[in-house]
């Protein structure tokens, strides 16, 4: 997996660079250069393969079932791009070493640059489309870091975010596109995609696939109307701009056009979409570039324009146009990188990039000026420079297409674009290096350090040699790259500075002349532009969009999430109603079944009437809280009564005990709460609530009726049959609780223990002001512990404990059990608190009931674990009958131990809750301070 290695080297290098930066600024630059060289070196041995006509594909499984593998491809196109990325990358590394100032972190810069480089390399070397997308998104992310490198600058942050948002948009669209493409082809491997080209273009999903993929391409390559992020990305340090906007980031988009050209091009949809966007971008970029006063702004729009040109070429769908596209990719990379670097030198040396202030720099930096002039000439398409060659091919192809279509609009438009390119190139040179004297520069410019110019020199030389002797230099590389792009034999073309006096050459001459004319007339043009089109800024709608998103989000969230509990409860009830009611609308099931019910009797009727009235009273008087509490007591009592009536004595006992403890709890709480609730809801709200409450009530009643009126089959028989022989108890409910479903009970006591522990945690540091009198303002009675109550309750304690033991022990066979016994014990002790006070009671019993909980849970759990010793699952119970003299035969069951655990937890938790709550105002800070 050499290719994987080549991609990984920069990523690993990023970490290395970051580490190296701790040891000095230069070291990180050297490390970065070393890393880049290493990546180059790793690819070098393979470089011969494409030239030998071979495509190297290396694969490794990642998620094979999903078609996502680590798959790399080295063909001519990939090689060309890898060369550009690493070659220009190396120059950038060198350049940046001198560009960055002492305030700038070298480590961070180079680490991010390496990440970006690796990501780019990943894109161009990918064989698998999803893997390509992964690297694609990584370039977005790492470029975000690079663009926002000068994070203290607002425009850097904004520019980075905008670039990320726009390219992110494209990335997500492209993911969809690739998924569709993979769906059509049945594979994400490029080889398979190429092989299915005809199938793809004929597929009904072709157009959506194309649209989604092009969204990715156009955003990345800054094609109209997604071009606007690119100028804002100029807030990055110039080495970043030079790298991202010449050979790499924006080229990823056109790379993908080239990559997918064999699979997707050649349809009308492709033609109109791609060439349309390309042409629009070409014209727009060329036009706007002229009017930018910022050097980098000019270059940015020029980049946009050239990317449009390349896009247009691929859009034309002819093999020759595609070859021209690949060629222009190379040429643009070289002259644009050098121009950006030159602009960086100027900025670096003169302290500004504003062309209205930069004038006559020829006198200060003639060497740099010469380099810039050559590069700018290449950009303008001046003969004997590389830019001229690809532009000629472009013009020729435009003419060729025009001949096919019988319309001369395209040649006219591209010539106009060419003219503007000439004009802004002249401006770049003339405005900066000549045009009088500099205006108010922050520093006096001079030539940059030797090593800072070297990268520019290398690139400018390349522009020259390619322009003069293309056949000897770039031709082989272009051939393999173009062949890989076409995935077909190359068309007939000829690389030479001179093709004779043909239409394309005429167009070039016209463009040069017209461009010069435009430059001469620039002043009125600038005025006209700035009064009109120049005021348009894509950032305005973009910002409006983003701000609109944020505002909408905030409105939606605030509207929905008001922080109101009532709304949440309301929504829950509403949702439950919708879910519960919906199935009945199908209308196939009757609400009532045919089961015969029990007859009504007077007692049940009166009890039910009392319950309903008490419920109504509780609701009606909910603001008179004490009264509501008393009526709630009636409800609980009648519910217990219902349990008794319908053969559930255990439930009745439990409900009764819980009922009382709950009332005590509520009373303890009510002491610290307002005795009378304030009127807090409007009549309308109460009406709405009443309606939904009644509907919910009707719903549950209907549900209950629907079930009760139907017969059912139950597993109950098993419990009744096995309770005694298998569980050793005759109280089937208790046997279920401690044996058949003892696990539930273990959970249940854990809940209780948790409630106790949670409450203790909650009450920590809580202090509440104790009211001095009741709601009517009467002071409390002076007698805290009425003697008669105190005496009698003390007498009752042993009795109650005896009853508790009785209930505990008999639970297995008769109504009762650990829970009820626990509550009786707890209540018996609570009455002591009630009658005698906390201080008195604490002197007579351990005030910390947490050990009880620990013991209880422990006993219950270990009873369950003990069954392991007998090779049985957790909680397997056992029982036996023992006969003792005098006492006689009695039963011993492990379930009883379990029930003892339950008992202890209940006592512990209940006592803990009630006593902590009862001593709440003693824990107040005032008391503590007094101690």
């Amino acid at each position: 997996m050499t290719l994987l290695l080549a991609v990984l080297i920069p990523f690993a290098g990023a970490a290395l660079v970051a580490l190296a930066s701790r040891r000095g600024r230069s070291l990180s630059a050297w490390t970065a250069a070393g890393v880049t060289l290493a990546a180059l070196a790793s690819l070098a041995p393979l470089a011969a393969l494409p030239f030998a006509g071979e495509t190297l594909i290396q694969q490794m499984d990642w998620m094979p079932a999903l078609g996502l593998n680590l798959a790399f491809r080295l063909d001519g196109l990939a090689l060309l791009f890898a060369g550009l990325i690493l070659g220009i990358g190396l120059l950038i590394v060198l350049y940046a070493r001198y560009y960055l100032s002492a305030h700038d972190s070298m480590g961070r810069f180079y680490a991010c640059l390496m990440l970006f480089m690796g990501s780019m390399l990943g894109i161009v070397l990918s064989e698998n489309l999803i893997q390509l997308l992964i690297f694609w998104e990584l370039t977005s992310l790492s470029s975000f870091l690079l663009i926002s490198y000068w994070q203290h600058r607002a425009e850097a942050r904004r520019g980075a975010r905008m670039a990320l948002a726009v390219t992110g948009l494209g990335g997500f669209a492209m993911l969809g596109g690739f998924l569709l493409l993979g769906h059509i082809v049945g594979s994400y491997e490029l080889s398979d995609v190429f092989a299915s080209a005809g199938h793809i273009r004929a597929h009904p999903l072709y157009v959506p696939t194309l649209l989604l993929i092009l969204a990715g391409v156009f955003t990345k390559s800054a094609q109209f109307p997604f071009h606007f992020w690119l100028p804002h990305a100029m807030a990055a340090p110039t080495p970043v701009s030079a790298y991202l906007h010449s050979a790499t980031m924006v080229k990823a988009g056109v790379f993908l056009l080239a990559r997918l050209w064999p699979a997707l091009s050649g349809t009308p949809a492709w033609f109109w979409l791609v060439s349309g966007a390309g042409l629009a971008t070409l014209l727009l970029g060329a036009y706007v570039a002229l009017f930018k006063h910022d050097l980098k702004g000019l270059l940015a729009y020029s980049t946009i324009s050239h990317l449009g040109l390349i896009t247009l070429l691929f859009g034309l769908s002819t093999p020759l146009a595609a070859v021209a596209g690949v060629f222009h990719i190379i040429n643009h990379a070289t002259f644009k990188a050098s121009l950006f670097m030159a602009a960086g030198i100027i900025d670096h040396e003169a302290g500004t990039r504003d062309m209205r202030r930069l004038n006559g720099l020829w006198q200060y930096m003639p060497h740099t000026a010469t380099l810039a002039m050559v590069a700018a000439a290449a950009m303008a398409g001046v003969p004997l420079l590389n830019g001229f060659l690809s532009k000629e091919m472009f013009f020729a192809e435009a003419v060729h297409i025009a001949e096919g279509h019988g319309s001369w609009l395209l040649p006219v438009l591209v010539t106009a674009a060419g003219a503007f390119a000439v004009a802004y190139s002249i401006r770049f040179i003339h405005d900066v290096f000549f045009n009088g004297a500099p205006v108010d520069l922050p520093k006096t410019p001079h030539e940059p350090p030797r090593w800072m110019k070297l990268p520019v020199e290398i690139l400018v030389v390349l522009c020259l040699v390619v322009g003069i002797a293309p056949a000897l230099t770039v031709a082989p590389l272009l051939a393999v790259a173009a062949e890989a792009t076409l995935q077909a034999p190359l068309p007939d073309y000829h690389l030479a500075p001179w093709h004779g006096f043909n239409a394309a050459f005429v167009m070039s001459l016209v463009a040069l002349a017209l461009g010069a004319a435009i430059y001469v007339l620039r002043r009125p043009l600038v005025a006209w532009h700035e009064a009109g089109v120049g005021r348009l800024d894509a950032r305005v709608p973009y910002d409006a969009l983003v701000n609109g998103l944020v505002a909408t989000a905030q409105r939606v969230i605030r509207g929905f999430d008001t922080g109101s509990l009532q709304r949440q409860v309301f929504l829950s009830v509403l949702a439950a109603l919708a879910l519960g009611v919906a199935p009945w609308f199908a209308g196939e099931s009757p609400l009532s079944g045919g089961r015969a019910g029990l007859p009504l009797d007077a007692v049940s009727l009166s009890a039910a009437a009392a319950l309903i009235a008490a419920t109504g009273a509780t609701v009606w008087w909910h603001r008179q809280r004490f009264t509501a509490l008393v009526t709630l007591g009636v409800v609980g009592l009648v519910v217990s009564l219902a349990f008794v009536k319908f053969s559930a004595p255990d439930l009745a006992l439990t409900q009764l005990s819980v009922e009382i403890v709950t009332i005590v709890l509520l009373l303890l709480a009510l002491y610290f709460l307002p005795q009378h609730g304030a009127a807090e809801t409007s009549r309308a709200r109460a009406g709405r609530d009443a309606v939904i409450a009644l509907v919910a009530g009707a719903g549950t009643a209907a549900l209950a009726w629907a079930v009760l009126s139907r017969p059912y089959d139950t597993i109950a028989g098993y419990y009744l049959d096995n309770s005694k022989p298998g569980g050793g108890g005759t109280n089937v409910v208790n046997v279920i609780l401690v044996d058949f479903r003892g696990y539930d009970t273990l959970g249940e006591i854990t809940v209780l223990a948790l409630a106790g522990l949670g409450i203790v945690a909650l009450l920590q540091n809580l202090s509440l002001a104790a009211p001095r009198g009741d709601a009517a303002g009467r002071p409390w009675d002076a007698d805290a512990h009425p003697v008669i109550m105190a005496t009698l309750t003390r007498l009752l304690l042993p009795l109650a404990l005896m009853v508790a033991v009785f209930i505990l022990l008999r639970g297995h066979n008769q109504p009762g059990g650990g829970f009820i016994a626990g509550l009786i014990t707890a209540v018996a002790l609570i009455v002591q608190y009630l009658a005698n006070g906390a201080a008195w009671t604490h002197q007579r019993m351990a005030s910390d009931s947490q050990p009880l909980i620990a013991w209880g849970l422990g006993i219950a759990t270990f009873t369950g674990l003990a069954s392991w010793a007998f090779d049985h699952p957790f909680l397997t119970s056992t029982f036996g009958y023992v006969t003792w003299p005098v006492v006689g035969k009695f039963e011993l069951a492990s379930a009883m131990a379990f029930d003892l655990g339950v008992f202890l937890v209940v006592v512990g938790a209940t006592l803990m809750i009630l006593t902590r709550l009862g001593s709440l105002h003693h824990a107040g800070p005032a008391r503590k301070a007094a101690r």
Partner: protein
Amino acid sequence: MRRWLPHPLLTAALTLLWLLLVNALSAGALVLGALLGWLIPFATSRFWPERIRIRHPGVLARFLGVFAVDIVRGSFHVAWLILKGPARLRPTFVEVPLALTTDLAISLLANTISLTPGTVSARLSADKRTLVVHTLDTSDAAALVAEIKQRYEAPLKQIFEEGDA
């Protein structure tokens, strides 16, 4: 003896209670009841450190007899008063000066009063010397006070407090 069986009376009472709870008289129940009756007082003794001593069992028996009769009588009386209608009632608050001093005796007196003819003990003064009693239908408050003192307080004093004061 005292150390191992601190509350013989309570133990006996609890054993009996156990037998009542189990609702059966068997050797096993007796043993377990006695065991619990012996153990539970250890746990609760701190709530009731002093022993309850009954000095005149005969007086107690007689008191209980009077009490039982009075309950039944009182209930019939009150039932009659209720059925007769509310208009004819002559409710009154009377204050009973107490000769009893111990909490237990006072409490028992108060309860006795509450359970017997037409009277409910409503408030014990903070100095524990006066018991406010509400009556349902009384024409002669002084006679009522006298009756309470003679009929209930005196025997209670005898049973629980004689020799202490």
